[in-house]
């Protein structure tokens, strides 16, 4: 390392670095950056989310060059992208499925944080910035889905904007304001297009803050124990660059499979019918990534309460660091939390599933029970466990945990070639 530093004292990079420390910055944050040495593959999802954001912005800019934000022309302009623009089908399918991949990645990223207690002291703001990113993503994804101006676009926009009409007195004014008229129409489409283009750059800004907050204390790790000595860390490069790179390769294979072999698997066929303000599709559902929240909305028989509960389902995440005040971060050492956590995970899948089902009969009951557990997990179980849960024995350090896992609990296998 020393040799490298002296070597850099001359030359153009040093001249620039002295005036604008970009190389020092890169070195500090992507190269030498000390990272816990026991991170597992769940720690890949942050970088994957970053890559997905870049993919979405690049394809989005290129799509915007071909798209026309006008109710008369939007649907046809999208069809023109599919048929006439060179590789336009590829561009649109990457962007369309990229939205789904983005949510898969971010949801796994969040469940990771939830399992390993990454939202606890001193990473509260890091977590809250993440929730802000999620909210921005939801708004961006929703408005993007409106742009092709198909049946699902139109009626999705109508239903979601009408959520605001639930508020007493001001509700109708808010909705008229959002629409820029008295129904979802051209003014709505043009403003949604502008905001859909604008918000991703806001996301980039919040991501930057998210990274600043992350690098303040460094990554959490599977044991949830703080880094205690240099022996607990390894430099980011090459160890985690190569790990992220492998993860990226696997991710892109999955992404590419979706784009090339099942591009419309996650979409809804009704969105290939041009928007018709006179006819609502028989079975209207949001995109899959909104289904759990949609299920919570429909679980409640009262309009205002349903809407409030749905917003609360996201907002409750902001308060996570104060709802779970248990000192131990990682669920690996919290036998009870671990079980409730997995139940919560399954519960979210159930919510997503009932969200796609018609709102009648047994599905209503299931959605109510699942909604109850969703909020019960955050508001009752978490504070309760914070007080009473006894933990299993913690390892004394990250290194100790790694050594004991490698040499005590298991027979060392011949495949561990680094000690050949």
């Amino acid at each position, binding site marked *: 390392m020393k040799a490298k530093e002296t070597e850099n004292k001359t030359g153009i990079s040093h001249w620039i670095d002295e005036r604008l420390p970009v190389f020092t910055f890169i070195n500090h944050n992507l190269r030498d950056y000390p990272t816990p040495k026991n991170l597992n593959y769940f720690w890949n999802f942050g970088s994957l989310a970053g890559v997905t954001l870049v993919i979405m912005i690049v394809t989005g800019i290129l799509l915007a*060059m071909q798209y026309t934000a006008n109710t008369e022309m939007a649907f046809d302009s999208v069809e023109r992208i599919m048929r*006439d623009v060179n590789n*336009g089908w590829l561009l649109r399918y990457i962007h369309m499925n990229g939205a789904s991949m983005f949510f898969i990645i971010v949801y796994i990223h969040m469940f990771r944080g939830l399992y390993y207690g990454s939202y606890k002291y001193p990473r509260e703001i890091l977590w809250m910035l993440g929730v802000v990113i999620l909210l921005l993503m939801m708004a961006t994804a929703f408005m993007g889905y409106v742009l092709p101006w198909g049946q699902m676009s139109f009626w999705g926009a109508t239903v979601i904007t009408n959520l605001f009409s639930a508020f007493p007195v001001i509700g109708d004014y808010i909705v008229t304001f959002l629409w820029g008229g008295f129904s979802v129409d051209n003014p709505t489409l043009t403003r949604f297009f502008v905001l859909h283009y604008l918000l991703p750059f806001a996301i980039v800004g919040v991501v930057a803050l998210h990274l600043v907050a992350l690098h303040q204390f460094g990554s959490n790790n599977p044991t949830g124990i703080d880094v205690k000595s240099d022996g607990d860390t390894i430099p980011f490069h090459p160890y985690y660059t190569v790990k992220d790179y492998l993860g990226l390769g696997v991710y892109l294979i999955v992404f590419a499979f979706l784009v090339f072999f099942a591009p419309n698997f996650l979409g809804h066929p009704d969105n290939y019918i041009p928007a018709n303000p006179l006819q609502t599709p028989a079975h209207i559902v949001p995109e899959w990534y909104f289904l759990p929240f949609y299920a919570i909305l429909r679980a409640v028989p009262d309009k205002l309460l349903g809407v409030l509960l749905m917003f609360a389902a996201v907002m409750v995440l902001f308060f996570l660091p104060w709802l779970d005040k248990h000192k131990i971060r990682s669920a690996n050492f919290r036998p009870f939390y671990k079980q409730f956590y997995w139940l919560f995970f399954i519960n979210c899948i159930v919510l997503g599933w009932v969200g796609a089902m018609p709102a009648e009969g047994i599905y209503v009951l299931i959605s109510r029970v699942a909604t109850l557990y969703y909020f019960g997990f955050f508001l009752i179980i978490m504070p309760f466990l914070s007080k009473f849960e006894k933990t299993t024995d913690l390892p004394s350090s990250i290194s100790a945990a790694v050594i004991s896992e490698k040499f005590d609990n298991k027979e060392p296998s011949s495949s561990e070639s680094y000690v050949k």
Partner: protein
Amino acid sequence: MSEKDLKDKDLSDSVDEEKRDFLFITTAGLAVAGGAVTAFSLIDTMNPAKDVLALSTTEVDLAPIEEGQSLTVMWRGKPIFIRHRTSEEIRTANDASVNELKHMASDESRVKNPKWLVVVGVCTHLGCVPLGQKVGDNKGEFGGWFCPCHGSHYDTSGRIRKGPAPLNLEVPPYDFVSDEIIKIG
């Protein structure tokens, strides 16, 4: 096997440099190739789309154009000047001494049928549309076209004779489909 064994082992012995180089080069090579293909596909979306290319031929019926008259048609978003030249105009075009021209070209080389001159109506200086198509337009000192932007004069063969333009008016690719119909592009 314990932690101590791991520390005692000199790891540098076990590093296979050749294998590392191979892995590094193949990995980086594949990433660069994949990135290049992806980048090309994405950038290619900005090239003219199929519906744009479909507009790149235009058929024109010449029959209604009387001698001395001109017609302007659109081809690829640009004006095409078609002039049914009088014998006087053909003669002055041929009279000009090719060697003294700024952009040397004989009138023969610029027409398929001397009666019909077909040129792209875009000044080769900075892209304005020259005057001279309509009755009463200023046709410049050489009876062809005059560009009002920076004062370029074109003759009855569409050749630059005076002014800042460097080249003659471009002759687009065209064919006579029949005696009185041309297909441009």
